[in-house]
């Protein structure tokens, strides 16, 4: 089923980017190209062939891992995606982890003290976190921490001096992991300083979503008979809450976590462009604005596979619960 959906996505993106009148050959050859160069570019890109043949070529190449060449940089899209993926994954994972660690306890407490001031406060903060425009938070953070307090850098992943004059650790390709395992603390510190603002922006939505979902899942469970029974046995409230409550709300929480990853990923489109973070998100925004369609299709494919995979993983984890029948 998932494979059929991915196939649908491929077909849809392929035809979506081709029904629109834009001239990829001109993009490829440059704006000053003469007619012969344009014709050559058209031939090189296979644009002179019928659209069905084009699709067949694209599809067979894709199965071999070849996503075509970026129209702006003339480099393979798959290579560009591979180089940029670690930076985004690091951002998304750190942001979602922070959001989960904050969101689950907040949701738990809100459910415990339903309709108390704590519940109202958490409702307001969670919904505010969902409602706030990411690009506006970014702007305010930059104003406060960069311009007025001069505490944090404006953007980027590392200071320019470090990037130019220091040997960057390269083991796994993940800068955060690499700087930890090679024990390069100046770089680690610099990287973390650059990460704070993007992480807040990417994680805010996720935090709001997770705490709301944990709250409603817990409310449902706290009204169950077995919770009432354990309370009437005189079991400690914290024990009931964590041992029986949280354990049984694991299903919805995992659903929330996978959703969280998906939303965090989506938020990187905006956040990475604002903070100049060298990841997939910035690549998406740049390619879309330039109508660079091999890049757009590559990213869309990657994003949807990531999305679908998350859902499959969530289903599998939930299926570990013996009460669930698939």
């Amino acid at each position: 089923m998932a494979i059929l959906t991915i196939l649908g996505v491929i077909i849809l993106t392929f035809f979506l980017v081709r029904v629109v009148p834009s001239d990829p050959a001109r993009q490829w050859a440059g704006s000053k190209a003469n007619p012969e160069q344009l014709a050559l570019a058209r031939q090189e890109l296979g644009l002179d062939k019928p659209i069905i043949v084009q699709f067949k070529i694209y599809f067979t190449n894709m199965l071999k891992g070849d996503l075509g060449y970026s129209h702006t940089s003339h480099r393979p899209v798959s290579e560009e995606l591979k180089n940029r993926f670690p930076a985004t994954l690091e951002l998304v994972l750190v942001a979602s982890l922070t959001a989960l660690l904050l969101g689950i306890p907040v949701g738990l407490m809100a459910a415990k003290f339903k309709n108390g001031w704590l519940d109202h406060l958490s409702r307001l903060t969670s919904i505010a976190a969902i409602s706030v425009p990411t690009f506006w938070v970014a702007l305010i953070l930059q104003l406060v921490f960069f311009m007025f307090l001069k505490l944090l850098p404006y953007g980027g992943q590392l200071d320019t001096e470090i990037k130019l004059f220091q040997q960057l650790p390269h083991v796994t390709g993940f800068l955060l992991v690499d700087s930890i395992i090679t024990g390069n603390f100046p770089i680690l510190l610099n990287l973390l300083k650059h990460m704070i603002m993007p992480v807040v922006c990417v994680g805010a939505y996720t935090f709001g979503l997770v705490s709301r979902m944990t709250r409603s899942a817990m409310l449902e469970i706290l009204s169950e008979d077995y919770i009432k029974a354990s309370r009437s046995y005189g079991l400690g409230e914290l024990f009931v809450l964590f041992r029986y409550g949280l354990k049984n709300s694991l299903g919805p929480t995992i659903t929330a976590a996978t959703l969280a990853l998906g939303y965090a990923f989506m938020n990187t489109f905006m956040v990475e462009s604002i903070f100049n973070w060298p990841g997939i998100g910035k690549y998406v925004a740049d390619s879309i604005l330039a109508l660079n369609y091999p890049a757009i299709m590559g990213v869309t494919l990657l994003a949807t596979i990531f999305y679908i995979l998350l859902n499959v993983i969530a289903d599998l984890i939930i299926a570990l619960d013996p009460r669930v029948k698939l």
Partner: protein
Amino acid sequence: MRVRDTIYQLKKNRLTFSALIFIGFLAIIAILSPFLAPYPAHLYGGVNPAHKFLPPSSEYFFGTDEAGRDIFSRVIYGTRISLFASLISVTFALFLGVPLGLIAGYYGGVVDELIMRVVDIFLSFPPLLLAMIIAAYLGPSLRNAVLAITVAWWPWHTRLIRGQVVSIKEKEFVRSARAIGTSSRVIMFKHILPNCISPIMVQASMDLGGVILTLASLSFLGLGAQAPMPEWGLMINISRTYFMQAWWYGFFPGLFIFLTVLSFNLLGDGIREVLDPKIHKGK
């Protein structure tokens, strides 16, 4: 009775009720904005270089921008643009998504399979990404951004309605209607649809917040409204060039986006809480 009870419950929650009042206030601003704006000439044109980048004051409540235009007037007018464009998007998405959901749920079988597979494909795109791609290929303008959001949003309605229809169509009244030979079209639109209205309305009102946010995001990325339109996201986008000189330029439009989306989401959350019987049981 049900409606009155819902309103009573909504009133009881002060946060939800204040959100409702704020939305009413925004609606009034949106309707009256051309008359409320202190400098109507600044909405689309009006260049006044002598007054550029003035900080907020009693003359210009939210300060002025790079052309010396009053940001307060432009933000006020932006309310009308955002609310109106988002309402159109949500309505279009309903007109596309609801009939398809009705058909899929009612007929079942191959038709259902076909429609829902297409829905699945659309739902497996991150909505913002899909809207961005469509808006970029249609060419950046407010109208195209509205269309792009419609295309990204309709499948959610289709899925919701289909679920409702599947459970309603086996009810006694539908079966009796079918037994006396009522046509499928009449059954779908006269008997089933009215029974799905309340979840549709709840969903649509909860969507508005997200749609307003997405629209502003598209404009911020340069894929929506174009200058000199006083659209909130676009204003923040332009303000980034001048952010060292004028903090107020991007701050106030963003504050309006935030408060608007916040009140729609608070209202939606409040309505869901009131209508969800599971949560009430716990009291």
